[in-house]
């Protein structure tokens, strides 16, 4: 069985050096993905190397609903903006049932305009928010939620092609400000709210806002934070239709019909009629792509299929030979009208949009531009562009054949 992650995003692990105070979080250079999937109603929180299979995570934590939290390590939202300095975007996975924790640094390209490496874009925050809510046991419509961060104006001064670059980061640490400020974070989670006492790690910055993302209302920075947040949110919205491999690199999704919209029954049935009239022998090509049981059931001896085992090759050939032109036409039309075929078109479209174009085109002998990859590198085309490239490739292949 394969894994179908609920969400996947680029992130690396951090090593927490607890040998000295303040603790130091050291980002590990290995490129990877954090991803979550659901099995038996439990969420698995996983990390794997970029090159490894999703079925082979280095870290695989089975999460009990509400036990885990996934929150940014965000110096900006604290009452003391200078409290901690980092040079990366870090999220922390913690548990209410233990003091264990894991830190991850985001490896997607930073969206910051003022070279603030800690700047969390609305998309970064959205991802964190989705993960956090999944860990609370909420049902989250990931596609929808991410789409909600897409549909506004883009910043004109940012080059879309940069989206997919990996961020480099040398070091992250919470340090310097060890002085007490327990009394000031009135809006934040109280000590112990998430189990481990974060202050012991020198992560002072968490207190005011990180736990539950509530900024301390008493602090003077809070109102600006809110308007900042809204402004930043609106400004840095990016065309990211999804996070999976094929889609990440393409900017705003190209509006292009899905296969089901290109191949409605009215069109496909008419094409079968046209082929039957002009080149009836070609109908057999289509029959060869149907399940053998279906051919036998349509033939003159349907009992040759027992419902369990595939019918013999001989039974299939006999059935095929027994089919009249009319019977072939009506069998093909029946399949083209079936809900199963339409579901399959949906799956195929999705696979194309999600980065499957190179392998699918290859398997079908369709000559697509640049093998289905982006001209700039090794990423497969995604989204509407991938479906378009597929259909354009079909056109080219059909023309070349002549």
């Amino acid at each position, binding site marked *: 069985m394969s894994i179908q992650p609920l969400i996947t995003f680029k992130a690396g692990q951090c090593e927490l050096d607890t040998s000295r105070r303040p603790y130091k979080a050291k980002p590990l250079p290995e490129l990877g993905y954090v991803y979550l999937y659901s099995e038996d109603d439990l969420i698995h929180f996983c990390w794997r190397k970029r090159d490894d299979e999703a079925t082979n995570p280095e870290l695989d934590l089975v999460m009990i609903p509400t036990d885990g939290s996934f929150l940014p390590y965000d110096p900006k939202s604290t009452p003391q903006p200078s409290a901690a300095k980092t040079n990366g975007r870090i999220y922390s996975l913690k548990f209410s049932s233990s003091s264990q924790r894991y830190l991850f640094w985001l490896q997607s390209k930073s969206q910051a305009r003022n070279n603030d490496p800690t700047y969390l874009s609305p998309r970064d925050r959205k991802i964190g928010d989705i993960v956090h809510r999944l860990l609370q046991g909420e049902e989250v419509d990931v596609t929808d939620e991410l789409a909600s961060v897409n549909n506004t104006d883009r910043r004109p001064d940012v080059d879309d092609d940069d989206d997919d670059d990996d961020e480099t980061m040398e070091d992250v640490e919470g340090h310097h400000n060890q002085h007490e400020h327990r009394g000031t974070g009135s809006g934040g989670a109280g000590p112990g709210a998430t189990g481990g006492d974060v202050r012991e790690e020198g992560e002072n910055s968490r207190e005011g806002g990180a736990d539950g993302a509530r900024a301390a209302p008493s602090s003077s920075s809070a109102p600006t934070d809110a308007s900042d947040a809204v402004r930043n949110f609106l400004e840095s919205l990016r065309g990211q239709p999804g996070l999976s491999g094929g889609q990440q690199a393409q900017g705003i999704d190209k509006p292009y019909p899905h296969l089901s919209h290109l*191949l409605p029954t009215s069109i496909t049935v008419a094409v079968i009629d046209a082929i039957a009239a002009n080149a009836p022998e070609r109908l057999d090509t*289509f029959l060869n792509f149907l399940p053998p049981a279906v051919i036998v059931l349509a033939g003159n001896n349907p009992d040759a299929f027992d*419902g369990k085992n595939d019918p013999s090759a001989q039974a299939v050939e006999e059935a095929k030979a027994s089919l009249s032109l009319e019977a072939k036409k009506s069998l093909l039309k029946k399949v083209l009208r079936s809900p199963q075929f339409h*579901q399959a078109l949906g799956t195929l479209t999705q696979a194309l949009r999600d980065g499957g174009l190179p392998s699918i085109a290859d398997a079908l002998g369709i000559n697509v531009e640049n093998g289905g990859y982006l001209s700039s590198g090794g990423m497969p085309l995604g989204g509407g562009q991938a479906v378009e490239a597929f259909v354009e490739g079909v056109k080219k292949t059909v023309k070349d054949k002549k």
Partner: protein
Amino acid sequence: MSGGWNTIESDAGVFTSLIENLGVKDVQFEELLTLDPSELATLQPLYGVIFLFKYPTDQPYSSASGPQDGTFDHDASQSIFFAAQTIQNACATQALLSVLMNKQQDVDIGSHLSDFREFTIELPPEFRGEALSNSDLIREVHNSFARSTPFADETQQQRSAEAEDVFHFIAYTPVNGVLYELDGLQPAPISHGACTPEEFPTRVVDVLQRRIARYDATEIRFNLLAMCRDLRARAREFGDDELLAREERKRKDWLFENALRRHNFVGFAGEVVKAVVEEKLKEGGEEGYDKWVKEGLERRKAAEKARRAGDGDVEMGG
């Protein structure tokens, strides 16, 4: 990852083939289109009813004091076959087996299921559910009816709400003179009072009508499948050739649909796209091709508009 259960469709043909492949003989499912006792009565001998609904519902499911209707019969958890549900995607199969496992007097459930019953009837309900989810045979047969998914891309996200609705299956069946509701998410079988097999159609419709009335009219989406004796067997006994021919045709349709369900359509779809593109080029050249794509985009926009306006299709899970 061999222990996974895939979702299967709630469909009379799928369920009938599923139990046949588990070794059950002369039993079939019929989809019920109305909540009418007389429609149910025509299917006698009737073994039980599978009720499928969207879950969770807008109403509380049960309270600490008991279910919304009927009473918990904790003694029956042991004496009849009742299994706690441990795996979401197995719930359809579990509901079917809940009926069959209590009908071994009336139905030939085959050697595999007989052995399974004998083994698990001694266990408490939660272990019966566990044993069921761990049965390789039952899982393999169940999974053989899952839709073919040739592209299980590892980075693929769960797609949009249209496929995400969760459904729950429960069973109603008369056992030992009592009408039981067998719901693996409840702590015990729920008794709805004394009931003979003859009274079952009337009684179960009463219970179902009360159940449906508890939900908001727009909220509840449900589906009812009756489990009854193979209708072809009766047609043969009565010499009803018309019924027999109709039922044989239905069987063939089920086999046809099941074969398509399991089919990997990629190659076929590829041929269809090629043929359509070729035809469009032949009819209208590049212009005809462009027009075809443009019309496709219009269709997509219309479909998306329609989906936002209404519910769209519902897929069965659980």
